[in-house]
């Protein structure tokens, strides 16, 4: 009887020319929480998808409990006792909790009998692991924390002994995350093995027993958590010392450029996403909006930039109102000096099938300098693109290349170049460094600060608290659509974390 739950030997996986996993070896001991840490794109998710049978490795062996197994699909993983909680929940939104838990593990053709069995089993699991959730609630009506609980229940219902959690805290408030950690602790005490994937060092230090570090598709080290430090792990992750601070001088806030008053926005289902929000943004300052993803930041940005209709409230740009509840038009707002780097560059900020030059005019295609009457001035567009490529060091420097063929960082630079080079009065930026390589992050941060120093007003939304703290001159915290506090950038992470959790969040955590 071995005390090893999972052993991976020489796992190798390529997608085309991208070598996602290079000769990976990993040993996970039974009854432990094993962290896997690495930057975005380091190959963590690919590795776990191989373990869960979502992809097949090109070569290498998987051993579960000391026996070599072939995991050709998730079914094989499930029968080997492996369960997975995905980063994007794999739930059917208009099904109940019970139906979701059962799906794929029903024990008869007719649902009635399956349902009653599942109900009993679910009750037992709830008791055993303190994972309470109403079995008849619809998923779409549950908060994300509870949805995640359903995912865990799904795995346990399938009798998983080994649980993989892929970036489980990305969508959680700090108290919700703490609650998750307590649940994981309990599961460990019951003898379950947990593989915990994250790119957040704090979480690794808080709950894991052992930690493995991945970098650019390779497994670079495995340490006992108690024998390592945040600094060592950070260095292993990035391969060099991380820049913990961005160099920037004092801000010189000037006139109010953007004033948001009592703004309320609902989503397509009629749920209030932004609730009576007010704040101001001055020339020459960066205001960061902190918050867990999904607390109204996205809708706030969309309403200000004219993409989404607000229900009520006013927004003043340079002292003049934007018709946010009626006919606010993104094109018109651009002319008035508002530039917007959207959160989702793949679907919003760029058209991936366009070439670089074509994306360089997206949103500015009405500008006379790109047009001859109703015709496009292709020469001017080309020249403009070449200039931006030089200035922003976009690689490869080919304005005719399809945007899909640029790396994440270079794609983001295409968007930034387009929005910044206009010299807007107000720049709104959502998730400036999501899915961007380290080198580009530094460049992007520098550019944002330069914009501020040129006297532009910058509104920054990011789910990366470190980024908010490093760049902002003031920090506004949003929770459940409301502004719950404003802090100076030297506020501690703990203080901000509590705010991000909101009052309700704290209550829930105390239960």
């Amino acid at each position, binding site marked *: 009887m071995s005390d090893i739950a999972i052993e991976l030997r020489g796992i190798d996986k390529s997608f085309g020319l991208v070598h996602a996993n290079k000769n990976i070896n990993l040993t996970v001991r039974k009854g432990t929480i094993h962290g896997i840490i690495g930057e975005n794109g380091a190959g963590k998710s690919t590795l776990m998808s191989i373990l869960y049978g979502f992809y097949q490795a090109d070569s290498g062996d998987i051993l579960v409990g000391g026996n070599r197994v072939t995991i050709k*699909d998730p079914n094989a993983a499930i029968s080997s006792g492996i369960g997975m909680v995905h980063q994007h929940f794999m739930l059917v939104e208009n099904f109940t909790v019970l139906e*979701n838990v059962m799906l794929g593990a029903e024990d008869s053709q007719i649902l009635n009998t399956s349902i009653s069995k599942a109900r009993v089993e679910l009750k037992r699991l709830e008791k055993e692991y303190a994972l309470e959730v109403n079995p008849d609630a619809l998923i779409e009506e549950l908060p994300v924390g509870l949805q995640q609980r359903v995912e865990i229940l799904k795995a346990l219902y399938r009798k998983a002994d080994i649980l993989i959690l892929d970036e489980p805290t990305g969508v959680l408030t700090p108290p919700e995350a703490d609650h998750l950690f307590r649940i994981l602790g309990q599961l460990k005490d019951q003898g379950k093995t947990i593989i915990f994937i994250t790119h957040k060092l704090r979480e690794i230090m808080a709950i894991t027993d052992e930690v493995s570090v991945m970098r650019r598709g390779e497994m670079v080290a495995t340490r006992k958590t108690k024998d390592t430090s945040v600094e060592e792990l950070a260095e292993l992750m990035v391969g060099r010392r991380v820049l913990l601070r961005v160099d920037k001088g004092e801000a010189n806030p000037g006139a109010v450029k953007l004033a948001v008053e009592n703004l309320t926005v609902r989503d397509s289902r009629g749920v209030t996403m932004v609730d009576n929000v007010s704040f101001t943004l001055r020339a020459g300052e960066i205001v960061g909006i902190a918050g867990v993803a999904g607390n109204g930041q996205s809708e706030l940005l969309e309403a200000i930039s004219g993409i989404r209709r607000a229900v009520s409230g006013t927004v003043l740009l340079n002292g003049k109102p934007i018709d946010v509840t009626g006919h606010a038009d993104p094109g018109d707002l651009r002319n008035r000096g508002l530039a917007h780097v959207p959160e989702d560059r793949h679907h919003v900020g760029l058209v991936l099938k366009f070439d670089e030059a074509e994306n360089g005019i997206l949103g500015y295609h009405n500008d006379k300098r790109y047009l001859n009457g109703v015709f496009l001035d292709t020469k001017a567009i080309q020249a403009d693109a070449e200039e931006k490529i030089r200035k922003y060091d976009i690689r490869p420097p080919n304005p005719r290349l399809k945007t899909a063929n640029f790396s994440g960082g270079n794609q983001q630079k295409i968007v930034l170049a387009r929005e910044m080079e206009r010299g807007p009065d107000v720049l709104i930026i959502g998730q400036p460094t999501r899915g961007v390589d380290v080198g580009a992050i530094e460049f992007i941060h520098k550019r944002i600060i330069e914009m501020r120093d040129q006297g532009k007003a910058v509104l920054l939304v990011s789910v990366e608290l470190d980024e908010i703290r490093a760049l902002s001159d003031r920090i506004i915290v949003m929770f459940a659509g409301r502004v719950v506090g404003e802090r100076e950038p030297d506020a501690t992470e703990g203080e901000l974390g509590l705010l991000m959790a909101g009052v309700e969040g704290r209550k829930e955590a105390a239960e």
Partner: protein
Amino acid sequence: MEFFDTIVAILESTIRVSVPLIFAALAGLFTERAGVFDIGLEGKMLGAAFAAGAVAAVTGSVLMGLLAAILISVLLSLVHGYASITQRGSQIVSGVAINFIVAGSTVILGEAWFRQGGRTPALDADARFQTVTFPFADAVKDVPIFGPIYSNLLSGHFILTYVAFLLVPFSWWVLYRTRFGLRLRAVGENPGAVDTAGISVIWLRYRAVICCGILCGFAGAYLSLAMSAGFVKGMTAGKGYIALAALIFAKWRPVNIMMACLLFGFLDALAIRLQGNPLPFIGQVPVQLMQALPYILTVILLAGFIGKAVPPKAGGVPYVKER
């Protein structure tokens, strides 16, 4: 009383013309709830009607005709499945293609095999479906109100007619009360959830597409073996598209589908009834207007009330494993 008889007569023909719509719309229900859109209902129905007419004419057996209809329709469904599930092609384009392939092939093959100008030979009574007469239907015929309703409206239809109406609750039961139905609805909403639960998305969708083929087979067999005595070229005449509209109009729900099909059938029956007869107050209505009315109404209905109809979330989108 004459008015009442007219109503009964119109309702009776409403039922008659609704049946292929119900089969076809339920067929669409199964595939679209699984996330595979299908505008090829028309083609499958036509192919099935041809197969039924041809095989029944050759074998003299109505059952063989029905089986052939189902076989051909399922084969066409599998082509659609292969294009849209396995090859991840456009589901609309694939549906359009199938409609044309069938429209051409039924004429070419029919002419080559039977040489009757695109028809299959007229079928004998044995090779067709017969109407079913309920007990005492003749006896109670003259009882006021109840009589005509029982003997004309309820009794005297083809067996397939009763099958169609029984399929409505049966489809509901399959979709909402069986494991297959649960998984089928799940795969139309979030195929990722189905995949990670260890169920094959592809095989599940193929099964849904096969269900669609079977039901379209019934629809086609009804046309050439019950409603008519043989296949006539282009005999579906847009019924597949009307069924599609009914499916959308019914917001992808079985009981609503029956109601929508009955409504469209009623419009059709009314149009036939009103041909050449002046309407009170309005006067003579051009026959072309009456023929176009179902389509016009569908457009109006689509524009006015369909706004909130939410199609299955993963509908029309081929499943690609997310990375």
